[in-house]
């Protein structure tokens, strides 16, 4: 029995999810819009966590495909924040340097960096980073230009109107 308190499990428990509460009903996975992409499902990841198979859990591609639509969290009969648990797994993977090098990993990196630094995402920057990160490909680049010319990609980052209190919090966080 290899259930050991580890970084990943600690992170999951940290977001208020006790994986043993999961009854493996599969409702999370049945309703998941991206589970079919990877062959892994949120249910399976909860099972890995029950067994304490942390390596399998953090190496799974699935958390990177999670779009945080919260369908799983909303539907969970035991009230588990599965979506939160998936994000905890991403953080655990990043902490271990297991940032994925594929499209999903790069997208997450590009998206989250901006979200962290600017609270809003510039599609222009996202596009450039994705084109760059995936290794420059002409067809991708031309698609990007076409979308840009048709005005489908916003060139400016939406302005964030931040309250004084929020700015205050940002100051406290050092960001």
């Amino acid at each position, binding site marked *: *029995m290899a*259930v050991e308190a580890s970084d990943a499990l600690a992170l999951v428990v940290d977001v208020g999810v006790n994986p*043993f*509460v*999961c009854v*493996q009903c599969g409702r999370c996975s049945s309703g998941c819009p991206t589970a079919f992409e990877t062959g892994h499902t949120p249910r*399976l990841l909860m*099972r890995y966590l029950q*067994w304490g*198979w942390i390596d399998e859990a953090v190496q799974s591609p699935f958390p990177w495909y999670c779009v945080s639509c919260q369908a799983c969290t909303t539907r969970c009969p035991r009230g588990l924040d599965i979506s939160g648990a998936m994000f905890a797994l991403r953080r655990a993977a990043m902490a271990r340097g297991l940032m994925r090098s594929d499209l999903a990993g790069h997208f997450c990196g590009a998206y989250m960096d901006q979200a962290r630094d600017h609270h809003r995402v510039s599609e222009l920057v996202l596009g450039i980073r994705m084109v760059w990160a995936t290794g420059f490909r002409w067809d991708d680049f031309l698609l990007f230009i076409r979308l840009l010319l048709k005005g489908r990609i916003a060139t400016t980052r939406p302005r964030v109107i931040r309250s004084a209190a929020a700015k205050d919090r940002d100051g406290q966080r050092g960001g």
Partner: protein
Amino acid sequence: MPPKEPLRIGVYLRDRGGTLSRWCDLDVAARTFAKSKQIAQWEVREDWLNPEGQAAIQDAIQSGRVNRLLFVGRFTASEDEDIRGLAASAGLNPHLVDFCVPEEQGIRGGDDARDLNTKRVIALFAMALARARLLQPLEPVELPAVDAALVVGGGMAGLNAAMVLAQTGKQVYLVEKSATLGGRVAQLHRYYPRMCDPRCGLEFLVRRLRDSARAEVLTLATLEELRGSPGDYHAVVVQRPRFVSEARCTACGECLRICPATVPSSNGEGERKAIHPTGSLSVGQAFIVEREHCPPGCRLCEPACPYAAINLDQTPAHHSLKVGALIVATGWDPYPLDQVEEYGYGRLPGVVSNLEMEKLLALRRFARGNGHGRTGGGPLSVGFIQCAGSRDQRHLSYCSGVCCSVTLKQILALKEQAPDARCVVFYMDIRASGTDELLYQRVQNLTDVIFVKSNPATIRPEDGTGRLRVRVEDTLSGKEVALDFDLLVLAGGLIPSAGTLEVSDRLGLPREELGFLESHLQCQPWESQRTGIYTCGTCRGPMNVSQSVESANSAVIQSLRLLGSTVQVQPPYPVLDRTKCDKCKRCTEECPFAAYAFDEQGFPVPDLAKCRQCGICQGSCPMVVLSLGNHTARQLSAQVEALSERAPVKGQPLMVALLCENDAAHAAVGAARLGLDPPPNAFFLTVPCAGAINNATIADALSCGIDGVLVGGCRDGQCHYVRGNELVRKRSSDLAEKLRKMRMDEARIRFEAIEVNDARRYRDLLHEYVAELTRLGPNPFRV
């Protein structure tokens, strides 16, 4: 016999608001029967229950103008009773009052239907009159009864039953085979859902029983014989010697000091003396001497007892008890898990049954400091294998329904003693139904409890460490896992106890296919198939403690019917015409409740207290000499014959349906209520059970020209009287054979399972059958 009174039938029609005369012509009907000499009065009224109507009935009876009453039209059930009561108060036996409801047979629709409906009503009147002519006055019977009950089995159910009986003021005898009360529940560490110590509840019960002047507890006792009938049983109970007076022993323990004989304890925990205390309860448990362990000639304990409670010369005692009812609560045994060879029970140390786990938990074997159970250095790891031998065609085909909750309870208790213990539950399905789900959720909210939907195929001891290696497929992750355990608990199922089988054999209580005592589970779960012998607890089927307690209470409430100074048996009960009976014993064989015995001359005698009035005996009698009150074969035959003379439509098949009043008759009445058109020549008659239909009735119907007889009973396995529906079918296959020899079509008898809600199907069946009979052509016996 008094001289036979001439028949004077009063026919009273209720035409409330013209409901009857609207669809049939009552004048035509009146004219049809005007010449009948047996009809003394024919009167139509709006109401018969208003003061004038009542006065008219009373006057007719008291003046001697009528001696049979036939009421026609719709009456409610309570009005039926009122009318019978009225007749009784006027001096007429209420069983000489009969009712005929023409609407129930269905009213044909359409413009020209009035004429046909009138003809149908006339046929019905003819049938009702034929029946009224043969009505017999019936009287209730009073049988002797005793205000005492016998409870067999001193476990949870038996103790509860005994206590409730004592509380209701009945004398109660509790017979327990072992030396101690409490049964299986006394062996448990906790019971769910409240996780109490069972000894708490048991001691309460035992103390209440001991303090009650009306309860007598006989331990070490077995029921050897039961004679008599419900309400008035005579039971012989043999009590093995305890050698210690229960009335005197104070459990002071002086005898223990002096007893020289030491024997290993029965539970494997240390040693004990030949004289020792019994049971784990602190109340009401005297010491016992196991004489087989006493050294030859040793009588040291006798003088040592300060209360003079010991008598080593005690012999078995025979108790002769008069009781009105029996409550069987003989309980369960655990399934012998050594038969589930792959799990190594009894062969591998560390593999225990769930009942043994209770003991380990009760001894607090897993608590810190006790150290026991851990074979390695790490935390304790315990595996629970569910359905060990259950839901398995090689062992028990059924689910015992409690083992899942028991495992959940044991995990909670285990985690209380060893919070770091790692538990794995191997299961097929977790069946924690109802509020037991909360128990399941409590366990899920613990950490380090994993539920693996997969059962191990084998268990191997690991070399050196003594741990047990289990390899299973984790179906939920699709991976194979190998796990090592300090302890494996097999969740075995419940089987009827050896005592249950013994009592069943001794009292002739039928067992269902799983071996538990049979009853009609849905309608009368509390009563065995022998009237007066009630069952409760796990001898009836697997159940948990709370269900067991409830079943005990329901059994007691039902048994109260038989406890008192007399038992009233209302008609109809079977009556035998001894002048014609040829003692063939058919009735005794077919009676589902074994109500028949033989008198000195060899005649079958129904025990009216045991009889449930299904009439299956009447249906079985080849001589047609058994009759059930006013449901006799003769009356049925007379009705059918009357019908054959008054077929409403000539040239169309005439059919009669004989319907069980529990199911099929409701479908027929329902069809009429829905306004479904019956075939013009189809009528039905009700019988108490399809099994009450005698072959002679069917044969009579066919020989007087009825084209087809439809027998409507319950579905197989649903008969209230065990298998009346199957019996009539079996009997009638003989009759069909006879029909073939007479070159008549077998199709003239037809059997259908008709349920209460089958109104439309019933109507369709009738039409389809009539169509088939039309194809067959007229009955060759038709005149």
